[in-house]
């Protein structure tokens, strides 16, 4: 089966018929990815035990693991990807989605506790990004990219300890990891996050609503204007909602969104993606330098 949305994990995805049922087999043959895939499965199993409004998590039936391989067998969901969904969604379906996202993240917040995240978590991660960028042959001769990393390091040095909810998050809550089935939204591809905070899920969803990241990986023609209008609507609703409710969101969303894009940049090798990332990071640094425009 040809998938319209291409991911970056490198896992093999197969749709398997067993009797009259369909299942997804997601597997890796990369020994370095085995534990990561197994952890994803554990996170997804835990999430599937919780009841959410409109949000569903596909059931995982089996996890097979060896030193070199891992395969997870999960429920197949009849669904559309986000672009197909948005192309046909009436205004009320967009309203439902906004409500579901707010509800899901509020539930994560309620299942987390306020904790102090030491400043070194961010500065260590920034040092790691700087190291990886300097070893990325597509970036290490790019003066603009190196300058952006340098300026970003200065920003991260100034953030300090962060007090925020920690305990529950999807870890990669982009639109490409949501399957759309009517007004039910199935979350897939859970990931460990460097801070297990609901704020990181807001960062990831706004990676798409504010910056249209997942559209970069969509190969078919689509109505870009309509998608931009919808994304802006969702983004404004999410931003206004959490800005109005939480000081930690107001304080740390922007530096963590900057870190999010730096972590994508460190592995980037496609010219189009690198140009996009430099544009986004540059605009974020401008915003952080002038917070009133955030």
């Amino acid at each position, binding site marked *: 089966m040809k998938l319209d949305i291409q991911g970056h994990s490198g896992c093999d995805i197969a749709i398997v018929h067993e009797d009259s049922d369909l299942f997804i087999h997601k597997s890796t043959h990369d020994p370095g990815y085995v534990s990561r895939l197994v952890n994803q499965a554990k996170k997804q199993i835990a999430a599937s035990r919780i009841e959410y409004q409109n949000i569903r998590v596909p059931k995982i039936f089996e996890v097979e693991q060896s030193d070199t391989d891992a395969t997870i067998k999960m429920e197949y969901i009849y669904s559309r990807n986000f672009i197909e969904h948005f*192309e*046909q*969604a*009436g*205004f*009320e379906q*967009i309203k439902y989605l906004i409500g579901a996202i707010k509800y899901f993240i509020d539930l994560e917040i309620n299942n987390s506790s306020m904790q102090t995240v030491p400043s070194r978590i961010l500065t260590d991660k920034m040092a790691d990004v700087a190291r990886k960028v300097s070893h990325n042959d597509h970036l290490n001769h790019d003066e603009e990219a190196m300058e952006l990393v340098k300026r970003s390091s200065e920003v991260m040095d100034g953030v300090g300890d962060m007090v925020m909810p920690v305990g529950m998050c999807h870890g990669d809550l982009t639109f490409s990891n949501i399957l759309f089935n009517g007004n039910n939204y199935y979350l897939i591809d859970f990931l460990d996050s460097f801070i297990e905070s609901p704020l990181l899920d807001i960062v990831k969803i706004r990676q798409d609503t504010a910056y249209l990241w997942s559209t970069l990986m969509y190969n078919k023609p689509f*109505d*870009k*204007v*309509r998608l*931009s*209008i*919808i994304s802006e*609507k969702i983004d404004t609703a999410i931003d206004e909602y959490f800005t109005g409710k939480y000081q930690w969101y107001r304080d740390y969303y922007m530096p963590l969104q900057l870190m999010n894009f730096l972590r994508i940049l460190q592995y980037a090798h496609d010219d189009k993606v690198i140009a996009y990332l430099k544009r986004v990071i540059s605009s974020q640094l401008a915003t952080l330098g002038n917070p009133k425009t955030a």
Partner: protein
Amino acid sequence: MMTLIVPIAANNDDYAHKLPQPFRLDDEGMMYCVRAITGLPLDQMDNIYFVVLRDHDERFMLNEQLMMQFRRHHLTNAHVTILDEPTGSQAETVARAIELNGITGMVFIKDADCYFTADEILPQNGVAIYALENLPIVDPQHKSYVAVDDMFYVTNIIEKRVVSRFFSAGGYCFEDAAEFCRYYERLKEYSPLYLSHIIYSMLLDKKIFRPIEIDDYQDWSVTNVKY
């Protein structure tokens, strides 16, 4: 009462040497763009503006020709608005016409490449719709489609995707010209920008649109350019 705007200010390579299709005459000697409005309840219109390009006007004497058409068909409240430069979208043409003529209140926008009849235009946001099954031959690619709920409220409008048995028939009503311009200003950087995008953006902001039921639909479009 309301203002009727007929935007015909797009440029097209075909028009370098040819008279744009909406300015051609039908068998009765009526310009198609004038014919396009004759099925509307014109007694509801305070003013009617045909918005054309200066380049087209200079090459084809459109102002004089349209004035003759207005006299012949007793359109005493019809005017020609001439834009110096081509616009990037139908929405821009309308916004420019609103600005240049100081139009306020309700506006009805009518495509110049089609005809329909409507008994009454209610004072509310609306989209003229027509059912696909009423057409003997359909070219679904060049239409936008309008979804309505059971109570006849518009819930969706989209270009070139068949989400409904109703397509947009080329008539759009906005109850406030200033509000239309606000949405245009918000979206004007997007391209290609269609009126359906403006309407969808308004729907997302909980603006209410009702379908306008029409009859006798005729599609004269020979290109997919909106004027």
